[in-house]
């Protein structure tokens, strides 16, 4: 067929999609960076170019610093726990030779398809001081002194939210690792156990190295995933309270934009969060770099 119709066909395939993607995704991304240099308040109101003033102000804003600290905490703690637990569950399912393996896989994966809003509402009730299951169990075990208002106290609220995030994502990463583990030739393990390597040694010397590339990718996925889910969970469960103890950077951004109409300031927050997540991804990429096995 002639060149002209080939070119026409390719253009017809890619141009409409690229146009929609540019308008609704690429253009807003550029706007986040551009508008963060302006002071803009309200709709259609005056916009003044103020350079890096928004950023300077952010680093003296106590609430923002607190929210950035909370976000950083979640981005480090949550992926680490998820990685640890999902690797353990995946190994149990892959090497346990259990007949009900597929049932467990289905159950553990289930939370990752639920709406974050639904998860937030359900866990608000699980943590409820009077009618929640956690305090009920503690009372039943006679540990009344530990039955606190988990979401109402500044010492526990962030861990409480971190736990929900782990609960939501463990099954998802478990499934990713499980596929990799099932593909590892079993002869490797037989040979290792003949050489006298125990289960733990086999795990660190065979399983982890073979899965290393998948693990590297999933660490970056989970660091970035934290941002999205923490935004919804905090909004639904605590609205950043008590006294900003659970405020994360993106909920603070939301508040600045849609409560205070401080759009330029809010976009400066988005720029910082974006930069932090890229830096963390690069660091994790660098730290996990290894000679190929």
């Amino acid at each position: 067929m002639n060149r002209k119709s080939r070119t026409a066909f390719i253009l017809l395939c890619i141009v409409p999609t690229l146009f929609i993607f540019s308008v609704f995704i690429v253009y807003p991304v550029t706007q986040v960076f551009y508008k963060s240099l302006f002071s803009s308040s309200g709709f259609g109101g005056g916009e003044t170019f103020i350079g890096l003033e928004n950023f300077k102000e952010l680093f003296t804003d106590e609430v923002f610093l607190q929210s950035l600290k909370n976000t950083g905490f979640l981005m480090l703690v949550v992926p680490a726990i998820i990685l640890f637990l999902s690797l353990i569950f995946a190994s149990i399912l892959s090497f346990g030779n259990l007949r009900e393996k597929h049932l467990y896989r289905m159950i553990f994966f289930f939370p990752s398809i639920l709406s974050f809003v639904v998860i937030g509402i359900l866990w608000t009730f699980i943590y409820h001081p009077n009618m929640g299951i956690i305090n009920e169990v503690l009372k039943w075990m006679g540990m009344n002194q530990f039955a606190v208002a988990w979401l109402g106290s500044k010492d526990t609220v962030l861990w409480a939210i971190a736990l929900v995030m782990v609960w939501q994502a463990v099954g998802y990463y478990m499934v990713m690792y499980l596929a990799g583990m099932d593909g590892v030739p079993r002869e490797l393990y037989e040979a290792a156990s003949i050489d006298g390597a125990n289960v733990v040694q086999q795990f660190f010397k065979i399983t982890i190295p073979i899965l290393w590339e998948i693990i590297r990718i999933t660490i970056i996925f989970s660091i970035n995933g934290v941002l999205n889910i923490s935004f919804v969970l905090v909004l639904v469960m605590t609205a950043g309270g008590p006294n900003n103890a659970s405020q994360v950077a993106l909920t603070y951004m939301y508040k600045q934009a849609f409560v205070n109409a401080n759009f330029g300031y809010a976009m400066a927050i988005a720029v910082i969060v974006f930069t932090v997540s890229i830096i963390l991804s690069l660091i994790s990429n660098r730290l996990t770099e290894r000679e190929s096995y």
Partner: protein
Amino acid sequence: MRIFLRVVLLIATFIFVYSLIWNIIAAFKTNTEIMESPWSIPEVLNFSNFTRAFVESSMGEFILNSFFVTGLSMCLLLLLVVPTSYALSRFDFKGRKLLHNIYMGGLFIQPVYIMIPLFLMMNNFHMLDNRFWLSLVYAAGALPFSIYLLTGFMRSIPREYEESSYIDGSSYFRTLISIILPLARPGILTVIIFNFFTFWNEYALALVLISSDEKKTIPVGLANLMEVQKFATDWAALFAGLVLVLLPTITLYALTQKKLTEGLSMGGLKG
């Protein structure tokens, strides 16, 4: 050893499904029963909770909106993603690599990052509070992951089918419709399943792009209901509402979980 593993897995299972089972039970309890104990079983099944969720909290309307937005987003997404994935996976043209990299970079853009500029832009063009534009935004946001899945799948289709179609004198467009589309069905199905959950559950963009109550989708409706119930304390109706949202999710999950977990490991392995 086997026994020990099973105990660990059973405890984990309890932790994973407890909240769900408790939610379903609570949806049939009276408000007093809910306050009393998280363990108790309702004395009678209170279907009136569901009526109140439907009538007083307009759950029915939210669910219809969610179905509408999810369905429309899916149609728009497929119209956009299939031709582009085909071009990217089969034709060598100038800028192909760049285009591919742009979409893959999009994998790192979370909707929450861009909700403010999107809101301001759509406000300028009077596109706010409109379910069609919301759906188009959803479709655009789903492009990177869908293109990633579908180009991977299309590359695995043997070229011979298309070549014989061209020899028969079919146009490129005809070949795409009658040869590629049927062959790519499993890949397209994976795209549909993954994005159904994304669209059905999306909250952040629906929260800022839709303002009038009668156009809200179910996650936004539920979050509002949660706020209202903090004062009205009709928890039973809230839980009934949650069950209504979960029904389509659970049904689809039961039907597709094998495909879903396979699709995930397929994508995950290729990175």
